[in-house]
């Protein structure tokens, strides 16, 4: 799964050189959803008021871990994402810390009005897990893929939006949103993707992390595209291009300082996300930078179309979501620098 050509190259590079310029090592692959599942268990162990609502796909979005461990704090809701979100709001207004998880397609779209009014306008301490994000879901096809929810959730006032880059960060991010007070949405994927951060890799909710230093161009990525960005940076280095790679795992609130520094110091930005180019991470960064430091940008993402069935790696290649497109975008944006 997702053993794209670029990743293979990377593995080769790593084994040849013994080390990479970014300091991350590929530790195999594991889907971010497992990090979410484990994070829930950690929270459950720490706090007795963390509760989880199941949406009839508990073994897909790994709420099953919590269910097995804390059956008395797990509540099956069946297939009613709108009302599950409302029930979560009611629990939050009663002092509980409820997590509700489903596929992002349904955890952000079936319940958008509920997120807007009952969660965000209420400022209810509800945590939403949106799984199977992006197109890497694969064969299930367009209805089960979701490429729109970064836009949908980040436009909501009071919402915090996190897109962890790998399994390890997903676990940290899940614990962090559980401990943060206020509405949160966390996005995670179904398919096994590269694991490369460690327990020691810094993660702070609301902070973007520079994963590789460089001043020629800054690649701002989220989710599994962070690894693709690191791979791209290694390739770019061969052409003498020194790319900064920033893991923008918190998309809302955006870490303006880190983004601004990148724009000032690199003068050109590439964004990469498994989402529509429209209104996503790239949009968030563009909106901020034109106000502070307008620099040339290029976007790697899905270009305003629905996904489709296929193997995850085939789809990532078909829709242009690999290091290859990041490399091309980086070269293009550097050429545009004034």
């Amino acid at each position, binding site marked *: 799964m997702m053993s794209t050509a670029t990743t293979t190259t990377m593995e080769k590079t790593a084994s040849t050189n013994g080390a990479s310029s970014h300091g991350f090592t590929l530790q195999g692959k594991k889907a971010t959803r497992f990090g979410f599942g484990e994070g829930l268990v950690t929270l459950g162990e720490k*706090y007795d008021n963390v509760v989880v609502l199941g949406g009839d796909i508990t073994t897909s979005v790994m709420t099953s871990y919590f269910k097995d461990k804390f059956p008395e704090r797990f509540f099956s809701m069946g297939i009613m994402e*709108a009302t599950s979100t*409302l029930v979560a709001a*009611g*629990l939050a207004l*009663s*002092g509980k810390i409820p997590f509700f998880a489903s596929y992002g397609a349904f955890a952000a779209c079936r319940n958008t009005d509920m997120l807007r009014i009952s969660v965000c306008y*209420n400022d209810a*301490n509800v945590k939403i897990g949106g799984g199977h994000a992006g197109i890497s879901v694969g064969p299930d096809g367009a209805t089960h893929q979701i490429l729109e929810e970064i836009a949908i959730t980040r436009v909501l006032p*009071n919402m915090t939006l996190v897109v962890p880059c790998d399994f390890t960060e997903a676990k940290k991010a899940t614990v962090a949103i559980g401990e943060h007070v206020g509405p949160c949405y966390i996005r995670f994927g179904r398919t096994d993707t590269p694991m490369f951060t460690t327990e020691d890799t810094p993660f702070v909710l609301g902070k973007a992390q520079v994963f590789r230093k460089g001043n020629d161009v800054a690649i701002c990525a989220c989710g599994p595209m962070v690894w693709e960005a690191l791979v791209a940076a290694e390739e770019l280095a061969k052409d003498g291009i020194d790319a900064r790679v920033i893991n923008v795992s918190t998309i809302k609130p955006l870490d303006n300082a880190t983004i601004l520094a990148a724009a000032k110091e690199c003068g050109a930005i590439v964004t990469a996300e498994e989402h529509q180019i429209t209104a996503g991470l790239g949009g968030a960064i563009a909106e901020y930078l034109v106000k502070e430091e307008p620099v040339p940008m290029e976007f790697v993402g899905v270009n305003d179309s629905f996904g489709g069935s296929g193997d995850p790696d085939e789809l990532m290649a078909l829709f242009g979501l690999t290091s290859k497109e990041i490399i091309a975008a980086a070269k293009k944006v550097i050429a545009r620098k004034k």
Partner: protein
Amino acid sequence: MASLDFHIYPLETGFHGSSRPVAKPELVKDYGYETFVPFTNSSNNSDEQVAAIAKEIRRDIVRALVEAKSGHSGGPLGSADIFATLYFGGVMNHDPKDPWNKNRDRFILSAGHMCPVLYSTLANAGYFAKQELLTLRKLNSRLQGHPGRDMGLPGIESSTGSLGQGLGIAVGMALSDKLVSKNSSRVYSLTGDGELQEGEIWESAMCASHWKLDNLTVIVDRNHCQIDGRTDEVMEVDPVSDKWKAFGFHTIEVNGHDINALRQAFAEAKATKGKPTCIIAETYMGHPVSFMNDDYRWHGKPPNKEQAEIALNELV
């Protein structure tokens, strides 16, 4: 194991993310609000006393609406008897002096547009000064056009206004009380009958009965009216009682203007174990104001000054 504490009760902080002030009641009318002594909630209050409070609630609704120059008359007036029974007939366990008391029963107004009756009820119970009713719908008022929890008005448990959502919140609260905190609080939620057209109502109903939430009581304000006309013409919701039964509720049909019948219904709901209860309260929109009674055109407009005067005269 620890509970991760967070602030769940609203403060008087004004609008989100801003330092906007909360509107202070300025208007002082000749309503005797300054000297008003709140009514108490007691099962010892006679039906007549509760009915008298309902009348007072209605008067305050009219006064607030005429001042606001916009807002909903029909539903609030028509459901005042239900609110009076709940808050003053000894049905709900609530304390205006300690509004966020952990053991309180909670009320969620799923039909958010009907908030004038809730505001008026709360003011009559002493949750806040009656003068504040006259800030209804005005800039920075705690009495938003639809309930806004961000304004921190005591007694407002949740923002509502998008129909079909409040009931699900009430279900979450009932689930929290019964199955997580395992306390004996009860949760009440009132929906409109047009509101029953929203599918989330039936999701919430299914969920409540699946989890056997016998601490939940739903009241349907069955006034046969919604914005565009009579409910059976806009979108038939009958047979209402069969629907709730089929979704696992104990159902009680009752005259929503009969305090005694309402009290019995609430008692029956409390006594019903193993399933939630739905009280289908037959009411007349705008009741008992002569020119509003049972007329859907009064769903969403306020009386003008002359109409208000007539209404207030009818409500003495």
